[in-house]
């Protein structure tokens, strides 16, 4: 079967094309849609919903806020039934901010309840750099079976994950912290290994079903060995970004 991926765009989305290209490379059929030209029911035609990186609506009213609001007010019912039918949702960078601000992540006490946030980096700056990430024990479909440290690039100004202690505690308990910033040996990093000052080194989180993944790092920027910043020194065979997206596509092909 063809795995159908929807790349949802809005004004200011800017990682849509390479994200679509990466999913095509994983064997999916990709459609790009602008949220203003799409009826919520059309979501039923897809199995993976992707919110790519960018600065939707200029990040006015907060990073991802307005797109989150549009999803909450117009797409709520359809998204709930999309998840219910086993569909996968991926939010990268600005897309992660959108998922947190809609309340789809972490989703501890049901969806569309905001429990966490992503705020300005502790450095006060936009930063583009490659980081080491440690996949944690979760049921996240996109990360299934990936158990060693890998690298991906981050590029953002507002990636610092914050939530009340109780939420963080529960996320840890229930295995919803999907990715942590780390040193190459797996030990906890300071800055810049943790590029934004995220609490508990959180880089990406999943929901209780494991169907939703939101992360600040960009998987679509590491789908070829030449993307890696040290490819003239070492050719890395494990293309972490490709592997993450491919797991989503393969899961849909097998299970839906």
């Amino acid at each position, binding site marked *: 079967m063809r795995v159908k991926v929807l790349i949802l*765009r809005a*004004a*200011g989305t*800017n*990682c849509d*094309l*390479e994200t679509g*290209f*990466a999913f095509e490379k994983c064997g999916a059929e990709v459609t790009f849609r*602008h949220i*203003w*030209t799409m009826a919520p029911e059309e979501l039923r035609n897809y199995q993976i919903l992707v919110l790519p*990186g*960018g*600065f939707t*609506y*200029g990040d*006015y*009213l*907060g990073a991802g*806020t*307005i797109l989150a*609001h*549009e999803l909450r*007010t*117009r797409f709520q019912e359809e998204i709930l039934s999309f998840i219910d039918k086993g569909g996968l949702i991926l939010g990268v960078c600005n897309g992660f901010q959108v998922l947190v*601000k809609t309340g789809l992540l972490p989703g501890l006490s049901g969806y569309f309840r*905001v*429990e*966490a*946030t992503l*705020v*300005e*980096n502790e450095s*006060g*700056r*936009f*930063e*583009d*750099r*490659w980081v080491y990430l440690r996949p944690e024990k979760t049921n996240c479909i996109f990360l299934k079976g990936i158990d060693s440290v890998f690298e991906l*690039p981050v*590029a953002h*100004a507002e990636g610092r994950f*914050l*939530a*009340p202690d109780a939420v963080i505690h529960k996320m840890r308990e229930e295995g919803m912290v999907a990715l942590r910033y780390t040193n190459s040996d797996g030990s906890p990093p300071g800055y810049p290994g943790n590029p934004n000052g995220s609490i508990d080194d959180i880089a990406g989180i999943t929901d209780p079903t494991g169907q939703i993944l939101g992360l600040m790092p*960009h998987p*679509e*920027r590491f*789908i070829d060995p*030449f*993307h890696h*910043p*040290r*490819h*003239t*020194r070492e050719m890395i065979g494990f293309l972490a970004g490709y592997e993450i997206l491919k797991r989503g596509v393969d899961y849909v092909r097998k299970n839906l």
Partner: protein
Amino acid sequence: MVHRVEVRKRYPDKRGERIIAGMGLLGVTGIDKVEVIDVYYLYGISDVEARRIAEELLTDPVGEEYRLGKFDCDGTEIEITYNPGVEDPVTPSALRAIADLGIKIEHFKTAKRYIFSGDLDPETLNTVATRLLYNPLIEHIVTGDEEFPETTYRFKLIHIPLEGDLVAISKRYGLALNRIEMERIQEYFRKIGRPPTDIELETIAQTWSEHCVHKTFKGRIEYEGRVFENLIKETIFAVVEELKPGWCLSVFHDNSGVVEFDDEYGVCFKVETHNHPSALEPYGGAATGIGGVIRDILGTGQGAKPILSTDVFCFGEPDIGYDELPEGVLHPKRIISGVVGGVRDYGNRMGIPTASGAVFYHPSFLSNPLVFCGCLGIIPKKNIKKELKPGYRVILVGGKTGRDGIHGVTFASQELDSESQSLSSCVQIGNPIEEKKILDLIIRARDLGLIRSITDCGGGGLSSAVGEMGRELGVEVHLERVPLKYTGLTYTEIWISEAQERMVIATRPEDVDRLINLFAEEGVEAVEIGRFTGDRMLRLYYEGNKVGELEMEFLHKGIPKVVRKARWEKREELIRPEPIPLDSAFLKVLGSYNIASKEWIIRQYDHEVQARTIVKPLVGRCCDGPSDGIVIWPRLEKRSGLAVGCGLFPRYGQIDPYHMAASAIDEAIRNIVAVGADPSRIALLDNFCFGSPEREEVMGAIVRACLACYEIGLAYGTPFISGKDSLYNEYIDPVGNPRPILPTLLVSSIGLIPGGKVVTTDLKEEGNLLYLIGRSKEELGGSEYFYQLGIETGIVPKVDPEVGKKIYLCLHRAINEGLIQACHDLSEGGLGVALAEMVIGGRVGAEIDIDRIDFDGKARPDLILFSESNSRFLVEIRPEDETRINTIFSGLPHYRIGKVGNDHLSIRSGGKTILEFSIDTLVTTWKHKPVL
């Protein structure tokens, strides 16, 4: 009924910290905390609705809290909001989002409330506010009453009789036209028997400005007994005309130059300057600089897609004291912070990687910084040619038009002085999200065939864009159809406004509705404002009244030819300063602002968005070594590379602009040959930044730089495909003395890497050999070493293109054969710096013996290590490849100078170690001081 909602952060707000840092740069101290509160005014709703909007839309429940009304705060406070009539960028999205909640609202606007802990006297508060918090053109301080009457404009046609003192008329209207040009205009209107209208005079001033028409470069110039009838045509354009390379697809006549990339696509490249706006309002000036050059790419052919941005800056020395600043001049750190921030925020939001660039510091740029912004695009070959026919419609797309940027181009064609700081109306205001929407839609419209021709609205606004587009056919425009940000604009202001984020499209009449609807789908306004006629006239109407009528022939060809004299006095002399202790000299050069790491800038730019950056600006074991050129894959599905680099040597320019330009070309080429570019497929861009060409020695410098472009460009087989000049880069100090910048030519380069084989600068493996390629001479005039010693003269580096070309071809062959493990070009700081940087990148030591170099000059270690002779590389090879390397480079200067290994850098001469540094020392010296 108005509701006020305030939202404050629950966690430390970085915006406040940035304001404190900014106040530091203004010399204001004593405030340790600034809180920023977001304020929203909601009009015509109930209390319940206001609370719902605040809760569900305006407040992040985890990170923020809100209040209806005001939070209580202690300290000095100030509130800033948009001027009446100015479009608040948040409003449209917010109104839509509120409608999604099912609430009917009359109006929505935002403000910001700043609370300073502690007392600020009103004057300081005003300085802080005008410099850091708001731009009076679009915003104001809230003082209570927020109801302002909107200004209205009632049509009245204005004629300007050209009688009496013509120069005074030019001055009064800010036209920047000289007496001869004014007389020419007078003569034209006498002939047709009426005085010009204001809009006609403005149109001519815009079209004839140095910024738009480059009259100096096209002028008649006398230099050393030679007369150039058209300087640029006889030098820079001549390279491509004589070489006639089939791969140059569109050169010097569109908004950017286009070269062939592969069978289906071309790539186009343009670099612009935005110097004067950046001197006055660094953030806005740089942001609109990058926004403008991106539109040049969108406006190439029938529309190209931007895939890379470049940025090159020249600033004053950052450590200058506040008391040393000339009147009306901003501190370099403030300029740097604003310029970098402007490029970062605009470029990152556009989703275009900013991955290539350079920064240069010298006191001559203190009052006149240079800001070069470049953009590179990809375009299907079938869309390279524009098509225009009578009857095609003129469509204006993008942002609304306001009073911003009036007279930007005539302003750019004059010197800055201490009064310039008050000319804030010349600075434009950028909105990257608007431009991103336009970008997405232009590419879609192009692929649907709806765009027959397109150009950007940049300097000169509609006047330049439409006037230029219609030059062959003639065009009529109805100015009242242009969407406005606020009421009250005159017809002339509409015509010459440089409001940003606007493009002009020519489309077939039958496609107008489709085009407008397509843009409307994603929230971009597109309006038909006129049509192309075929009678070679420019006709302007306002509410049915004819306000302007000019023959295109006169507008575009009527300008009197500029005649200038040029001279240059040679000032090159051999200097051999007393050496200072070698180890301190080495660290001084390595740690100088010009040479030290630029990582603090590079990381603020998203240099990897679009997932095509294959050699990044930072490379090596810890991803912090410098790259010579950068490499992108213009097509994601194909591993064919494109390398991008640049060269810039302003200090050489004060010794001899010829060799300054020659060296810039050589550097731009070797930058990208070093990463793998094919030397036979390199194209160049020129950006001239000089002082006033009305002075003979400045004109002489320009001529010499042009001559180098011709001779060196031709010898290397590297054509110029696009360029731009920016003149009058001078600051007139309060007593009337001009302070020109150093003669500066930026050369940018692009080169193909069809096979995709790339090399980086970082040393790879212990035991490998180090070879120096190219001839080293005692050429330290203008070098970083001499600069650190306080010497500004000497023998300047020359270019020998015959040898250089052979070196480039041989190095390219060696790279393609996989023989080169690491390669770094020698540039500022010479061999010493190149070696240190390779060690830093690889975090592995090296040992060299400088006696193995055949040095042309006095063989003193400091002169050998810091000579900046051109066309040189330091390469790392495996021992087993040595024979093959010697074969490839036979007959060319190449020296085995040492090997890779150990945990330190050691340099030997005369049988003993003369310098030794640990890797750590090199790293901390090179990375020690971010400027901000």
